């Protein structure tokens, strides 16, 4: 039973809780049992706050019974990547540098979902400081991919991906500086949304690179991401980049007819990334599905993918180095090798490199904004192929080949990854949809329509195989 895939999505659980047919306490116990049974192999969690979760579930149940249901997240168990601060609960960024660090306050986004009634299950594994991974020489082990534990999870929100995929949480928090929500979403076959820069507060989220960092939800469906985004979004004066732009009711805006929707296809990005034939076939098939739904396809040509990635990487490295330089100079051995080596690389970047990257960023943003003149939403690959084998991931893999996710950290656009089929080996493939600034609604609606028109979401990994691999 625990090894089975019989667990609900957020939306399903939410409807059942509302109808009184599902008890938040029972649901939370059920998920805690799954964590106890499966997490030894999946390493999704660094900290499980079982007692607190039970208490929160009981409170939720009592409130809902008393007729005070707060909304769709009320009584729904979710979990947080370990770079989100949680009051009284260790927040380590999976690094020895922060071992034992217990924040006094919740990150703004954590506090917001708690206020919406979500039940917090605990803290999820990540690449070290959302950057250095997959690493075996840091606090704890890296998360494993339940589709095939020999394969990479994508990073850095890997624990979130593993937990949602295996039913160890119904949804989770990720963060995304160069693709850290969307890449694991791709390799786990999930939906992951990096909202617009400024949409969700970054206050209380350990920074990787200030001007590229985004917080966002990961879940099984677009609808689940919409429900979570609604609770997480909103202006926060504690985040200097937070936008004072009202957040619409995303979940209520999902059912949209795609007739006439203009989809800009950035084909040359996946060509430059040398996408594998199965991925290309899946993307072309997905485009057919969108056409079948009434969308119009428009070919979009942008600057070379490598320009976007160079811009993203130079900014990311410079800002990350500034955050970490004290430790890097004083006690570099505190980091795992990958984190250390990547940051050392940043030491060689000049201010002129950084300033030029910022200037290039402005040009690229203007170019992307102009490309939206005749387009409602953009389409490209999330990754060049399915998850590679974990031992293929070296210290500098993010710079060796261009990442298809980075352009949209540069522009700050809302970008969503969703499954687009499976490889012959049974590993998930993924497509990305990108919207205009603050137009998450269109991105979510398009992803939702695609999900309904395909059967991919029904396919779950066989957790018996995970059991057997143990």
């Amino acid at each position: 039973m625990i090894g089975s895939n019989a667990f609900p999505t957020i939306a399903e659980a939410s409807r059942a809780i509302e109808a009184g047919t599902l008890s938040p306490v029972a649901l939370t116990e059920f998920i805690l049992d799954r964590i106890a049974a499966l997490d030894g192999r999946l390493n999704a969690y660094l900290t499980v706050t079982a007692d607190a979760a039970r208490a929160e579930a009981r409170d939720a149940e009592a409130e809902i019974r008393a007729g005070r249901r707060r909304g769709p997240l009320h009584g729904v168990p979710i979990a947080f990547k370990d770079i989100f601060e949680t009051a009284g609960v260790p927040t380590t960024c999976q690094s020895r540098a922060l071992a034992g660090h217990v924040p006094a306050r919740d990150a703004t986004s954590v506090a917001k979902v708690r206020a919406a009634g979500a039940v917090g299950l605990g803290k999820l594994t990540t690449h070290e400081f959302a950057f250095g991974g997959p690493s075996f020489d840091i606090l704890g082990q890296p998360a494993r991919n339940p589709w095939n534990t020999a394969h990479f999870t994508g990073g850095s929100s890997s624990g979130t991906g593993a937990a949602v995929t295996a039913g160890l949480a119904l949804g989770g928090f990720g963060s995304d500086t160069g693709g850290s929500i969307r890449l694991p979403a791709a390799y786990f076959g999930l939906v992951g949304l990096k909202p617009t820069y400024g949409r969700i507060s970054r206050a209380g989220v350990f920074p990787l690179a200030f001007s590229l960092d985004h917080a966002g939800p990961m879940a099984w469906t677009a609808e689940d991401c919409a429900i979570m985004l609604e609770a997480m979004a909103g202006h926060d004066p504690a985040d200097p980049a937070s936008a004072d732009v009202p957040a619409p009711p995303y979940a209520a805006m999902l059912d949209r007819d795609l007739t006439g929707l203009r989809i800009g296809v950035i084909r040359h990005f996946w060509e430059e990334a040398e996408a594998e034939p199965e991925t290309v076939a899946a993307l072309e098939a997905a485009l057919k599905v969108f056409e079948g739904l009434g969308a119009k396809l428009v070919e979009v040509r942008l600057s070379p993918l490598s320009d976007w990635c160079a811009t993203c990487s130079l900014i990311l490295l410079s800002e990350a180095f500034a955050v970490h330089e004290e430790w890097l100079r004083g006690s570099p051995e505190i980091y795992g090798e990958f984190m250390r080596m990547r940051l050392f690389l940043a030491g060689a970047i000049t201010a002129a490199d950084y300033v030029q990257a910022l200037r290039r960023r402005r040009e690229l943003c203007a170019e992307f904004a102009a490309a939206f003149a005749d387009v409602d939403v953009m389409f490209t690959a999330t990754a060049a192929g399915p998850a590679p084998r974990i031992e293929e991931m070296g210290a500098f893999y993010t710079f060796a080949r261009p990442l298809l996710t980075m352009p949209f950290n540069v522009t700050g656009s809302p970008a969503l990854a969703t499954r687009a089929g499976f490889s012959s080996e049974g590993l998930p493939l993924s497509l990305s949809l990108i919207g205009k600034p603050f137009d998450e609604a269109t991105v979510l609606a398009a992803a939702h329509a695609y999900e309904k028109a395909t059967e991919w979401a029904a396919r779950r990994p066989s957790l018996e195989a995970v059991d057997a691999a143990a």
Partner: protein
Amino acid sequence: MLPNDRPLTIAEAADLIRDGKLSPVGLVEDCLRRIDALDGTYHAFIEVLREPALAAARAAEAEIAAGRWRGPMHGVPIGLKDIYETKGVRTTGHSRVAADYVPTEDATTTAMLEASGAINLGKLATWEFAIGGPSFDLPWPPAGNPWRHDHDPGGSSSGTGTAVATGMVLGGMGSDTGGSIRFPAALCGIAGIKPTYGRVSRAGVMPLSFSLDHAGPMAWTVEDCAIMMQALAGHDPRDPASAELPVPDYRAALTGDAKGLRVGVLRQFYETDAPADADCAAAFDAALAALADLGATVVELPALSPMQDYLAAAFLISRSEAFAIHEETLRASPGLYGEVARERMLMGALVTGADYVQAMRRRRELCVEFAAAMRGVDVVALPTLPTAAPKLGAYGKHFTIDRPLYTTPFNLTGSPALSVCDGFSAEGLPFGLQIVGHPFDEATVMRVGDAYEKATQWRGMRPEPLAMAAE
């Protein structure tokens, strides 16, 4: 032959022109005569646009005679620092590098001034690309000080300062990245305002440091600056930093008093962190007393971080951005630049990306700190500079590090900051009073400056350039 009368202010000229009592053509001819008589000594101009200016003056005269007076800048002769792009007119940045550069568009501010009816008499000397000066190894000599031509007029808007003070133009444009409007305004004894970052468009002004560059006016009086600001302020989509905020009536804000205003004195900068010369500090103390007489309440500003922290962040940011702008040319042909510009910009090549990011983080902290310190006061006052003008050539390549200007912190914070003349040294060289405001509150800053000018005798004292030139 120099006109006998003392030069008019913009405000005076505007009234006379409006009433048909002064011909723009005559006014331009007066200015051209001053240029002819003086500029061989003062080197304020890189290029004088004699014929186009006369043509524009005739057109203005005809328009005004036909009852179409555009406003107080109509028919008023001005000059542009030679980093302001002028369509079809060479814009050199006072550098060999751009000696033959002819822009195909006007800077937004160039076009705005033209639309206001102002008449551009020409392109004014600057430090090379607004950073390298005073320099003696460039195609054009550095400008001289209007009070003593062998003294430094300050920089980098040196030509503007000199041209305004000697009456070659009635007003002019400067730019200010670390003090380049207020520094020459102080040493030339005129008024100059660095508006809030985002208030006046930077589009078409040769950049030095994107995040610290400000464009602004310089003129004989604060009232003249207010008139120019009215023509210059406003949102410009061509400038990504331009703010979308309404522009108040600046001249209407000039009440002639400082009643009810609280003036915070930033004693720490000029007494502790980088002490000013005694005569300079004495002039400032007298200015504070005058402000109190005008009705202001003078209070001490709370302690800030050392001024050197502000300067360090500004230095790293400005040098890094300057190097990024010029790096291609600096790599290919460093010899094209004068020694001072080259070495100052090359410092930016030695800054790491992390240094720059740290400077930006420090900048945020200092902005927050300064905003907190300004809570409870309307403006902050301190001297503009620690000294009066030295001899031309006395400033070394890194003089602002050895003897900091009190201007640069407000480039870092982006605050509006004005310099007005607050007296003279024993040698007859001017000192500057600096007034700093809340973001986008140029109106109060100019109100204080204008009231001070009208309550003191300094605006009645003009340099005697003819006498000096004859020396």
